[in-house]
Each structure stands twice: as structure tokens, then as C-alpha cells.
């Protein structure tokens, strides 16, 4: 093969290869076998379908936002419609896409495989968590269908409690339910990682994907309930017209901010940490090298989780928290930025003296590293108290978190989906077009969101349906970029669906990766491993993989 030098893809002979007859997809048939399944891989599939659905709803809303902002006047839709659109975009993308995206789909699929277990520790709870997600999603759709909500995804009191008459209660309850879905997922992961590891699987032999999901799960389990109670208090306050957040009756709206951000800041790490895990796996596999500084990367995840709890008030620097508190929270914010920098450099140095190939997941991973660097550094702009004053609540912050969430998390999600697609479905996606999609996404993304940094610096406030005309040029760039980005996201859904039937047979280990999940058939058996594996080597041990191959060749010969 001429391309052998530039790729590590190693597929079985297509003329003889078959998808294994017995696998988790085919074991049982019928809708009921899916709806009542306890199999983590099937639940992950259910999750994948449902979050994709919500991603495209959220994406459509994003498209509407960008269209409206094409012109300075609010001409495509009225201001209140625009407010509802960006609120629903935020709610859906944050709670129904980003939070469950990597953990509930890829994490759900992989964590038992990676730790060498037959399933997550609590399969029924896992299924329950999907049902909670669906119920919450239906409530969110009901909210949209019955008039929407226009609080912004941050539910600032007293606006949300006393000044709006849209569907705040149903949205609040939807997020409450979605929160429990996420708690149960996180709880399941922690328990599985602690208690279900196969013999020989010590903590420092775990793939880094497991570490980062572990860290994110801690945040889910301990952070989400605070959001839940906060939303309960908001709903109560709306119902009985008195509550602890209402300044007119002696309550304190800043208390709402404290409680809300106590979850919603760690939520950012819930979203990004699992993505970082994906990047570790991908970068290692496509450079044929152990992740540089494994321990440092593992501990940086945990450090992010621990520090991540105590930085929330940096969302409130200009709201009148005490100067002293601002100082402490700003300092802690600077500290939490360091582990992210550590990770970036470790990934970069994983490439050093590797043997690098550039398949689609790796392209997405490169995109992640560049965009996340920008997103992370601009986070420091906002974490420093002084510059925060000028930049917060403008498009700068919008650009910042889209760089982290879309440029970071979504890139990682796509990297992960492409990377594990052959394991999941047993088939390869078309490589060339997917590489094209990765590049299109990268270009579209930068064109969409980079101008927003400049807009923010100029002072354009976020959540404006209409804006002063001098900001139009940059907004046009942004909208143009958004349309390219839209194409970049539509392509994968097309060719991935296509590949379900027509893709090449992937075989067990098309990437020559070392993880336990790659040593079994694709798609895996319902119980994952015919016999529980015994882990006798480090994670990312490519020499071990080499020896395995030699053994196989020897035994066949």
C-alpha cells in the first residue's frame, strides 16, 4: 500500500471480513430491548442519538442568532423573540448537549471497557439517568413550544423570579431533572472507576480518559445538587412570590449568583475535562507514544476538579462582591489555569519523537489544542480582576467560552466520535471527507468566533438583539463563519450515517491503539469481555501491543 507510510489505519481484508454476528447491537432486537436495556453501550447509543438531536436544535437556534445579528437592527425577529432564542440556545447547549456530551455518550460507552468491567456498576441507574435526560429534554421542548423562556441560561434573579412571565418554572424544572440525570451518571462513573477495575488495573494504569472523567464526575456529584436547590428556590419564589433572592423583601439576589455559579462554574470543567481525556487518547494513539508526563496529566485533571470548586465568584467581580473576596477568587482562578497549561504542553510534547499520522481524530485534536489555548488564555483576561471589568458581559466573554466549549469541547467530542466510531459500529467512516469536515469546522469556527473577541474589546454587549452600526462588519464575518461552521457539523452526521451501512469493516483495532477497548471485537459483546481481562502493562504501552502482535503471528504461523 502506498499510503502505509502516512497512516496507521490497519483494516482487515475487506473481502473476507465480517462484522461479528453477536455483538451488543444485534444481541437483542426490538425497541423494547433498547428501552429496557442495562447495557452501558446501548445506553450510550441512546444518549448519542438524543444529544445529537438536541445539538441540532441548539445549533439551529445559534443559526437564528447569527442571522439576526447580520444587521444592526432587530429586523429578523423582535427583541423578545431574540431573547428567547438565545436563552433556549444556552439552555439546550449547556444542559442538554455540553454537560452530557462526552461523559454520557463516549464515557458511558468506554469507561467499563477501559477499566475492564462488564458494565457500569449500576446499570439500572444508568438507564434511569437516560430517562431523566429524556424527560428533561421533553420538558425543555415543551417550554419552547409553549412560548419559550427569556431569562438567559443564567436565570438572573430578580429578573427570572419577578419580572418575566415566560415559562421559567418549566425550564427550571427541566434543568432540575437534567441535573439529576447528570448526578447519576457521575455517581455511576466514580463507583465504577473505584470498584470495578479489572485485576491489575491500578490507578496509574488507567487511561487518561478515565482520569478526566473521574475528575468531571466529582464535580457533577458535588456541584449539581447546589444548582438543583437553587432552581427549587427560584421556582418556589416564583410560585409564592417571596423568597431568599428577592431584594424587595429583604432577600439577596447576589446569593443567587453565589449558589448558581457554585455549580455553573464547575460545570465548565464538567464540560471540558472529559474532552481533555479524549485528546489524551487520540494524541497518544496517533503519535504511537505514551502520553508525555502521564502522572502530571492525571493529577492536573484532579487539580482542576478540586480548585474548580473554589473559583466561582469570578463571575461576580463587577456585581459588588467584596474586594477581598474578589482578590481571593481571582488568585484561585489563576491557579486553576495552570493545570490546563500543563496539559497543553504535555500533549504537545507527546508528539516529540513520536511517529505521527494525521487521521481525522488527530486533526480535531490539533484543532482542540490550538483553540483551547486561545480559549484558556482569554479566560485569564477575564480571571484577572482589572481586565474583567472591561471585558465581562461583552462579546469577549461569548467568544471566550465558545472557544473553550465549541473550539475545545465540541472538537474533542468529534475527535472522540470519529476515534471510537469503528469500535462502536464496527465500520470505518470515509477518511478523506471527514478530514475535510475537520478542516472546514476549524476554519468556520475561527471565522465565527475570533471577530467576537474584537467586538467584545470594542464593548459590544452580549445578548443584544440590536447593536450600534459600527459593529456590523465584524458581525457579518461572524455570521459568515457560522454558516461554514454549520456545514462542518452537518457533514459528519451525513457521512457517519452513511458509514453505518457502507463503511469499511473496521476490525478489532483499526488504529493500532493500546486501550483494552481495542483488544476486543468491534462492536463489542454485550458483556464486553468474554473473560475478565488482566491488566499486565501500563496504559499506552505500544511495546506491549507490538509483542501481542508477534504472539498472534507466531500462534497463527
Amino acid at each position, binding site marked *: 500500500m502506498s499510503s502505509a507510510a502516512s497512516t496507521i489505519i490497519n483494516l482487515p481484508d475487506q473481502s473476507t471480513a465480517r462484522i461479528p454476528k*453477536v455483538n451488543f447491537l444485534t444481541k437483542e432486537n426490538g425497541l423494547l430491548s433498547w428501552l429496557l436495556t442495562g447495557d452501558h453501550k446501548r445506553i450510550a447509543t441512546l444518549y448519542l442519538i438524543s444529544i445529537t438531536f438536541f445539538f441540532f436544535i441548539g445549533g439551529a437556534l445559534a443559526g437564528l442568532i447569527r442571522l439576526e445579528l447580520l444587521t444592526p437592527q432587530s429586523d429578523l425577529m423582535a427583541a423578545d423573540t431574540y431573547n428567547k432564542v438565545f436563552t433556549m440556545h444556552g439552555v439546550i447547549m449547556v444542559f442538554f448537549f455540553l454537560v452530557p456530551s462526552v461523559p454520557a455518550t463516549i464515557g458511558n460507552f468506554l469507561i467499563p471497557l477501559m477499566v475492564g468491567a462488564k458494565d457500569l456498576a*449500576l446499570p439500572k441507574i444508568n438507564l434511569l439517568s437516560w430517562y431523566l435526560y429524556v424527560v428533561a429534554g421533553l420538558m425543555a421542548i415543551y417550554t419552547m413550544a409553549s412560548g419559550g423562556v427569556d431569562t438567559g441560561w443564567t436565570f438572573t434573579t430578580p429578573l427570572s423570579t419577578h419580572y418575566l412571565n415566560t415559562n421559567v418554572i418549566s425550564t427550571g424544572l427541566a434543568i432540575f431533572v437534567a441535573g439529576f440525570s447528570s448526578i447519576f451518571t457521575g455517581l455511576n462513573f466514580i463507583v465504577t472507576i473505584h470498584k470495578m477495575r479489572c485485576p491489575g488495573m491500578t490507578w496509574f494504569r488507567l487511561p487518561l480518559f478515565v482520569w478526566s472523567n473521574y475528575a468531571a464526575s466529582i464535580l457533577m456529584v458535588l456541584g449539581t*445538587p447546589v444548582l438543583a436547590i437553587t432552581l427549587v428556590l427560584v421556582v418556589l419564589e416564583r410560585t*409564592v412570590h417571596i423568597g431568599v433572592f428577592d431584594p424587595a423583601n*429583604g432577600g439577596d439576589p447576589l446569593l443567587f449568583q*453565589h449558589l448558581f455559579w457554585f455549580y455553573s462554574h464547575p460545570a465548565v470543567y464538567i464540560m471540558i475535562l472529559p474532552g481533555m481525556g479524549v485528546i489524551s487518547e487520540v494524541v497518544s494513539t496517533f503519535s504511537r507514544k505514551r502520553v508525555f508526563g502521564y502522572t502530571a496529566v492525571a493529577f492536573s485533571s484532579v487539580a482542576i476538579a478540586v480548585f474548580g470548586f473554589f473559583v466561582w465568584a469570578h463571575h461576580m467581580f463587577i456585581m459588588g462582591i467584596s474586594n477581598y473576596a474578589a482578590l481571593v477568587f481571582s488568585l484561585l482562578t489563576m491557579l486553576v489555569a495552570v493545570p490546563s497549561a500543563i496539559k497543553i504542553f504535555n500533549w504537545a510534547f507527546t508528539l516529540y519523537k513520536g511517529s505521527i499520522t494525521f487521521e481525522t481524530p488527530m486533526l480535531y485534536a490539533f484543532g482542540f489544542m490550538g483553540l483551547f489555548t486561545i480559549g484558556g488564555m482569554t479566560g485569564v483576561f477575564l480571571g484577572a480582576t482589572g481586565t474583567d471589568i472591561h471585558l465581562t458581559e461583552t462579546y469577549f466573554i461569548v467568544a471566550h467560552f465558545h472557544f473553550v466549549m465549541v473550539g475545545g469541547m465540541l472538537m474533542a467530542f468529534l475527535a472522540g466520535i470519529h476515534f471510537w466510531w469503528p469500535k462502536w459500529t464496527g465500520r470505518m467512516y470515509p477518511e478523506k471527507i471527514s478530514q475535510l469536515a475537520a478542516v472546514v469546522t476549524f476554519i468556520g469556527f475561527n471565522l465565527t468566533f475570533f471577530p467576537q473577541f474584537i467586538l467584545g474589546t470594542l464593548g459590544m454587549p452580549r445578548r443584544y438583539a440590536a447593536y450600534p452600526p459600527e459593529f456590523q462588519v465584524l458581525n457579518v464575518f461572524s455570521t459568515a463563519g457560522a454558516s461554514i461552521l454549520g456545514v462542518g457539523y452537518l457533514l459528519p452526521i451525513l457521512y457517519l450515517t452513511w458509514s453505518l451501512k457502507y463503511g469499511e469493516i473496521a476490525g478489532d483495532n483499526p488504529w493500532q491503539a493500546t486501550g483494552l477497548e481495542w483488544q476486543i471485537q468491534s462492536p463489542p459483546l454485550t*458483556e464486553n469481555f468474554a*473473560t475478565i481481562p488482566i491488566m499486565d502493562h501500563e496504559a499506552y504501552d505500544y511495546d506491549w501491543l507490538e509483542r501481542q502482535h508477534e504472539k498472534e503471528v507466531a500462534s497463527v504461523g
Partner: protein
Amino acid sequence: MSDSTTTAHGALAESHHEHPPYQRHHFESVEQQFDTTNFAMWLFLLTEVMFFGGLFTAYLILRNWYYPAFVAGSHQLNIGWGTANTAVLITSSFTMAMAVWNAEMKRKGGLVLCLVLTFILGLGFLGIKTIEYHEKWEKHHIPGIRYSVKSFVNPASDPDIAQYGDKPLAPDMAAKTELYFFLYFAMTGMHALHMIIGIAILGYMIYRARNDAYTTGHVTFVENFGLYWHFVDIIWIFLFPLLYLISRHQ
């Protein structure tokens, strides 16, 4: 492996020779199953701690701001009922602990007895709570729905608090008692909700225990439910002094 023709069940049977019927297939051993669910229960309790954490934070801040209103509001609570309820709940925790012990010792009769006692004590707690809530309704102390500051601006009109000799609160401070009662109902209400859920599960457990479900060595469910029940007890241990016992002297 990809050419494996063994059915899933075949592979399964190979790895588990024999195991008790309550062991779920993906666990290697009963011990692992017990450890796992036990740990999961603890994690769930952590989320509960944080859930109440938000309420406690709100409570502490407002109590510091509106201390006189919180004192006056607290005096409205019946300390007798409150203490009785604390005793009831602690006793129920004890009977629950004994239930776990009975399950471990495989004594079916003792287990059912203890569970029934716990069930009754839990209902007793809720009964007392209902009496207290009803009292609040009668006295117009339901925030937002049925509220009057009469007892606070004119304490002489309220014989229940005569013993404390409260001075009248100024109207602006008296209005803040509504926040106290909001927190009172939010916190005790949330606690009561946990009790109701617990009692429902207890009912199910009594039914199962009578069918020998927990006295054959499989104590996990009883044990984990015990953790939940004790946790609810702990919340009350904090709610009681925080809500009932603010400055009872004077």
C-alpha cells in the same frame, strides 16, 4: 475473538460458576457488589449534603442579617413538638440501625419488627410535623400564601409567646419574619419530602422482608437504606437547633 461463536450466555456461565440469586451478573463477587452499592449510596448522600448546603448557606446569611426577625420567628415554633420530633427521629434511627443488625444476624422477626417500628416512628414524625404546619396555617404564618405579621408587631396579642416577653418588632423587621418562615418551610419541607420517600421505601422493605428477601445474607439494600435514613436524621439534628433554638432565653 471476533470469530467467537460462543453465545453471550455461554461466556457468562463460564466466568461465574455459582453465585447467589441476588448477585447481579456484572459483578465478580457478592463482596464487590456490596462495596459498590454501599459506596454509591455514600456518594448519593454527598449530593444530598450539597443539596441542603445551598439552603444552609441562605439560612446563615439571612439569619445574620435579620437576627431579631429570626429570633421572633423561632419563638413561634413549638419547642415541645420540636424536641419530641427530634427524639422520635433519633429513636427511629436506632430502630433502623437495629433493623440492619437483625438483617445481618438473619433474624427475620426482629428485622420486620424493627422496620415496622421505624415506619411507625417516621409516620409519627410526619404527624407531628403536620400538627406544626397546621398551627402555622392557623396563625397565618405561611409565607406568600397566608401571612400576617401580627404576632411580631404586636406580640402581646399572641399568648403562645408570652413566656419570652418579646418586644414588638418594627414593621420593616417584622416583614423579614416571612423570610424566616420561607426558610423554615423550605428546609423542613425538603426534609419532610425525604422522610416521605424514606417511609415509602420502608413500606416496600417491610413487604420484602416478610418474604425473606433480606435475611439470607443479602443485607445490602437494608444497609444502604439505613444510611439514607440516618442521613435524614442528621439533617434534622442540624435543623432542630438552627430553626427552633434561636435565643430561647430572654
